[in-house]
């Protein structure tokens, strides 16, 4: 009872499928991205107003929206980078959403995931947007440069018929920027649908590390993007949750991790974990505390986790190579929000505990968390 509690503060039903929810920086508004039944994309802006939500703006476009981010926009201009179902990347100014600031046909398949960095941070490199798509390629974009990606990470193009092609190219499902602590360094972590986890170093232009996890990777996030990489949380299908300790890379063993296999299941009344192994769709670290994060599961439940560091984070093995030691995960609290998966979640960068969550039951919820400061 002393634990932090996640409470649903406001609830709004919409008449379209919600694909992403994001807070607008420095405001009490958030954006909901979705897809209408006629497959048009819809962007709604809601504002918190005491005990209800007010819809401030609604924008409709021809293609359904899949994901969006504010990472590359400065505080002053609210430019949201949005990926849609047709593979287009658009940067929209929310004050004037009709004309895109930047518009490019990024991929040939649906853009599954997007991340951006550099907008508000100082001294961490150029503002860039990275998109991962069903066609297996990852592209980094800079809106100052024309229609070509700045970096294009694609599997080698296949000769031969299309049947073979689709088998060999894995869909990219999750993507995250990290390690951008100065102007040069930047890393992209990418998760694929077959469980491949790859770390691309953009300074060295190469693959820094790769691993394969048992299940397809649905969610990926570094605990902080603008520090030397510390932890990487990975969520997968079938209820998998892994947290990698990224401070030490062993030459052969890579990074060490702690794994939780039941992260997706529903939590019963007494905290008894029951039910089928559901996908863990998303993982989001609390902006104010990088050791606390939240996962959204396929059964409609969300769980708050706390990571505890081990006594010694680095060990030396027989050959003198440094090896990282992973800590422990502790589930702090769990709440079932809906019957459908909670697949999008965003903490408010300014207010501790305030979050917006979107679920596949066509609803958007605003949550507040009590006692988060005690963690």
């Amino acid at each position, binding site marked *: 009872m*002393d634990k932090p509690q996640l409470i649903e503060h406001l609830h709004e039903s919409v008449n379209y499928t919600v694909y992403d929810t994001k807070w607008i920086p420095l405001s009490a508004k958030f954006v909901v991205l979705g897809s209408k039944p006629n497959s048009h994309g819809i962007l709604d802006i809601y504002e918190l107003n005491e005990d209800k939500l007010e819809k401030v703006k609604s924008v409709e476009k021809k293609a359904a929206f899949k994901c969006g981010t504010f990472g590359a926009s400065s505080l*002053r201009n609210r430019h949201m980078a949005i990926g849609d179902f047709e593979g287009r990347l658009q940067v929209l100014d929310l004050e004037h959403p009709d004309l895109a600031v930047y518009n490019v046909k990024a991929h040939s398949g649906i853009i599954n995931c997007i991340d951006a960095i550099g907008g508000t941070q100082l001294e961490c490199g150029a503002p860039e947007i990275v998109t991962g798509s069903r066609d297996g390629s990852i592209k980094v974009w800079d809106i100052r440069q024309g229609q070509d990606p700045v970096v294009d990470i*694609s599997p080698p193009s296949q000769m031969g018929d299309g049947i073979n092609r689709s088998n060999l190219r894995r869909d990219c499902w999750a993507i995250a920027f990290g390690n951008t602590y100065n102007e040069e360094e930047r890393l992209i972590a990418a998760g694929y649908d077959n469980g491949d986890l790859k770390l691309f170093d953009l300074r060295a232009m*190469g693959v820094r590390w790769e691993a394969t996890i048992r299940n397809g990777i649905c969610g990926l996030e570094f605990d902080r993007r603008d520090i030397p990489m510390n932890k990487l949380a990975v969520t997968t299908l079938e209820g998998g949750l892994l947290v990698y300790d990224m401070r030490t890379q062993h030459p052969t063993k890579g990074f060490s991790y702690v794994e939780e296999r039941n992260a997706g299941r529903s939590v019963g009344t007494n905290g008894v974990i029951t039910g089928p192994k559901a996908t863990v769709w998303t993982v989001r670290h609390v902006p104010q505390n990088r050791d606390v994060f939240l996962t959204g599961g396929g059964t409609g439940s969300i769980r708050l986790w706390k990571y505890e560091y081990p006594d010694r984070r680095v060990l030396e093995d027989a050959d003198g190579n440094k090896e990282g030691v992973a800590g422990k995960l502790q589930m702090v609290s769990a709440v079932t929000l809906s019957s459908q998966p909670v697949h999008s979640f965003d903490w408010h960068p300014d207010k501790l505990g305030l979050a917006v969550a979107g679920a596949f039951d066509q609803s958007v919820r605003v949550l507040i968390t009590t006692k988060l400061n005690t963690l």
Partner: protein
Amino acid sequence: MSSEKKAMELQFQVRQNAREYQSSVKDLYSWEKEIKSKELAMLNAPAPKIQTNNTPVRSHVKKTDETLKKPATNSGTSSPAITPTEKQDLPTDTLAQLHKKANDIKDRGNSYVKLSEYEKAIEAYTEAIEVYSLDPIYYINRALCFLKQESHDNCIEDCDAAIGLDKLCVKAYYRRMQANESLGNNMEALKDCTTVLAIDPKNYEAKRSLERINERLRKIATKNGPNFSADREDFVDILPFDKAASRRSKQPMRRISVVDIVTPRPGQDDQKQLRISDEEIDKIFNSNCGPFEEVKKKVKLQTKVAQPNTLEANDNLNVKIQETKQPAQHQSTVKEESIQSSTKLIETIIPQTIKPAAESNQTNPIVEKSVKTQSQPIVKESSITNVPQPTKTEKPSTLSNKTKIEQEDKKVKTMERIPPAPSGTAQFYMTWKELSPNQKYQYLKSIEIPNLCKILGAGFDSDTFTDLLRTLQDFYVPNKEPTTAAVLLEISKNDEFSILVIFMSPEDKNMAACIMDAISKFPKNNPGLLQKLGKLYNVA
């Protein structure tokens, strides 16, 4: 005690939680207000200091292999200098930059082409060429636009330019070939085509077909056939084409003997000849020719002369010529049967077999066979189920009466083509709709009675039903077709019939009643059948 304590604790906790929740909510509201004011302030703030992000755009690097080598450090950000500005970049990489810029413009042009806005595309490509003139791609793209706009000369020019830049530019040769073809410069087109093939023998499909066309054109240009008159400007060459085997007609080939047609009398006949409709001609030249119906001109004057003609003609023509009256001598030509023709206008093509009308009647007491009987066009090898009944069994008296009436009725016979008996429901309905009433009659007669029910099928609607009744009433009854009753019976066997009978309109009912009455007066009627029919049709 402990449980009480626990309960107390729990309650306490719950209350505390509630209090906390309230406080956090209040906190939230106050924060909201704060942040909204902050937001407003920020939005209303004066124009922001233009804070150009000095960090350079990461150089355009393509990673094609996922498992990549580790190149030297700083290769990622090598090209832009530490304090990059546009000016500094230019000297090092002028041409490439220009090229890139031009490529962007070309992309714009490409999107215009996709939207079929060739004007704008041409503008864009011209701009691209101005920026960077050494890329043949812009020229061939512009050539394509010109081609679509049919400015073939410009197209050829651009292709020439592209070829000047790149001797092995396949597309340039291809497009120049197309332009030359359209202009009629066959030799040039052929040259270009062979060049294309020389460069790229693998892309043979498009080139092969055009090679062929070139061949043809060459042949036509050089040949001098027997009927070849001087080349006139407005002559259009009709080139043969190959029809895929799958698209050819599936009808079996029919042997039609070639017969010399006696040229018709000028004047009247010519006019009549010109009145042949295209449809009729089509029907002739399709392999779907229907039975040939002999059209006779009623010219009483010619009867004497005509007779020997008809004799001959009948011998020679195995084509389905049907005459309404045959001289009795021609028992041998059993197949030839007569069809009653309606009172319609003629379109004579073979006018010579003129009906020896009244005369033959008088001369031959043995009446022509199968006048009144249902006749069937000899269309196919399909069996003639309704063998023309020997006329002798018919009542001769009424026949002669009838023939007189016929004569009056039939001033002119029509060259009507009766479609072949339908092989299926769809065919039946499609042709049925297109037929004139008389044709309908013939057509209906052509359908074998047992098949009638099936052919009417499930789509048997009340319009068709009314039509059938009308046909029966107007043609079968006056002609005393003995199959009328059988037809009626067959119709009644159709599944839809019961419903249709219920929905018969008063006119339909009248028609049915008339037909019933008429049938009952037929000779050789079957009272049992009649009663049954009466019940079926009057049941409503």
